[in-house]
């Protein structure tokens, strides 16, 4: 895959400079390496802070979701690598206005360890913190081992819902509880068609045949549940749908939000072809779709493929999902 870049090792730093230059009213770089992105108007007095973080290469995840009604700060690592403990601690400090900080991020070994450690560091400074790890990828472990699942696009629902709760003036325990509830309400499944290339590595993250797809592959190329010939859109969608429904049975009358997410190169035209089938199937089941999202929400640079996320709603989650938020990548 071809890329437009300068030094591969400057990829993340140059990207962040451009991001903040393009949206100065939304994003500000802080910290010794500029690897912490914060709201320029933060920390918001009296509000519970929400921080996230992880490797680069997934825009809008993670930094793109810093904004009103979403995240307060974000630590961002090299492509597909965890930020450092110090960067995470700086993000927590920047998000703290005294009401405590929720660490809300995807379930990956490196991020878990570093965020835990960052939490221990700031505890010594009397900053109260909590953790919610999003683990929504049904392909990555069984329902019995739900907490071992990878975190993928479901993250966006947790950001949105926890962000709205924090904006409402809720305290740290309340924000944490609803973030956890949102995280547990989400299920995702992906299908990958092509790999992507980490700039500093220079070769594709995996190999796949010209006519093959892999159902359940992770956003860093982690092995999925089935590799086989690329099938018709409706058949691919049906297979993904059945994996989701096995994990999260839906009944007539249920209300869910749906995210049809491109992994990068897959254009919106194809996402809408998938959404057409998906929305018809859910309507047949009597399931009501609330505020669907179709687009690029959690990506792997130029990887082709898509993911589908269900977020099962109750009245509280639905109200928070519909509350206003504002970032260049997500506005409600």
């Amino acid at each position, binding site marked *: 895959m071809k890329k437009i870049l300068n030094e591969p090792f400057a990829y993340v730093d140059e990207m962040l400079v451009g991001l903040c230059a393009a949206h100065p009213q939304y994003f500000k770089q802080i910290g010794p390496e500029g690897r912490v992105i914060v709201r320029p108007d933060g920390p918001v007095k009296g509000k519970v802070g929400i921080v996230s973080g992880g*490797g680069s290469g997934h825009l809008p995840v993670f930094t793109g979701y810093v904004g009103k009604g979403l995240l307060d700060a974000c630590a961002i690592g*090299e492509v597909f690598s965890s930020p450092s403990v110090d960067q995470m601690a700086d993000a927590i400090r920047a998000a703290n206005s005294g009401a405590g900080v929720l660490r809300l991020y995807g379930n990956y070994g490196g991020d878990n*360890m570093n965020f835990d450690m960052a939490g221990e560091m700031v505890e010594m400074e009397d900053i109260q913190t909590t953790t919610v790890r999003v683990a929504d990828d049904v392909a990555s472990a069984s329902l019995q081992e739900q907490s071992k699942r990878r975190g993928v696009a479901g993250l966006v629902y947790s950001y949105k819902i926890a962000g709205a709760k924090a904006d409402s003036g809720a305290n740290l325990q309340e924000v944490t509880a609803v973030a956890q509830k949102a995280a547990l309400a989400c299920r995702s499944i992906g299908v990958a068609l092509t790999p992507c290339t980490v700039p500093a590595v220079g070769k594709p993250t995996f190999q796949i045949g010209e006519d093959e797809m892999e159902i359940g592959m992770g956003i860093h190329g982690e092995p999925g549940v089935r590799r086989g010939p690329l099938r018709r859109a409706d058949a691919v969608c049906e297979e993904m749908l059945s994996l989701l429904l096995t994990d999260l049975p839906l009944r007539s009358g249920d209300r869910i939000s749906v995210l049809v997410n491109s992994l990068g190169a897959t254009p919106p035209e194809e996402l809408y072809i998938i959404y057409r089938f998906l929305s018809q199937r859910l309507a047949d089941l009597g399931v009501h779709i609330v505020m669907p999202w179709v687009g690029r929400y959690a990506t792997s640079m130029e990887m082709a493929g898509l993911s589908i996320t269900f977020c099962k709603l109750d009245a509280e989650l639905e109200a928070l999902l519909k509350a206003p938020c504002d970032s260049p990548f997500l506005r409600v």
Partner: protein
Amino acid sequence: METLLTTDVLRESFSRIVAKLEASAEELNELDAVLGDGDLGVTMVRGARSVQAELASLPDDVGLALLRCAQAFTKISGSTLGTLLATGLMSAAKATKGRRAVPWSEISSLLAGATAMMSSRGQGQLGDKTILDSLDAARAATEGLETPDALIAAANAAVASAIERFRDQPSRQGRARIFGEKSVGQDDPGMVAFKRILEGLL
């Protein structure tokens, strides 16, 4: 070596470790390229240099000195072993805080504490074929020993045989885990990294 572990000893030991890790960077990168993402040499060198920058100004309190070393590791970004080593150092820091000299006989229990905290941090178990198995071998071999020369020699030998013992087992943790049976026959990069650290002290 002195008869007790002091900040001066730490300073001198870390300097030798840094030199050894610089020399081993290529080898560790290559080992990690086989079973992971090939950055382990880079991680160790960057971590070591970050510690080195602190050496001159380390406090005399051994615990606080170790804390500064741990913090130096948390500054460098993001590979697993960097964070785990910071965790291990932090554990030793807590155990020695407030003391300007620590008897060598405590090394084995400091290793035990570090291994436990690293295991809890990374959700790894003994037997997974990770650096934890190197640390545990060193802990067992150093129990009851009271001089630095004896400690280092025993640890070195024990870690060498642990590496041999685990070579033909599959990796069960970290990036290497997804290689499954393909990891059989390959040395775990983290286990080897700890061996190089000990060699720096020989």
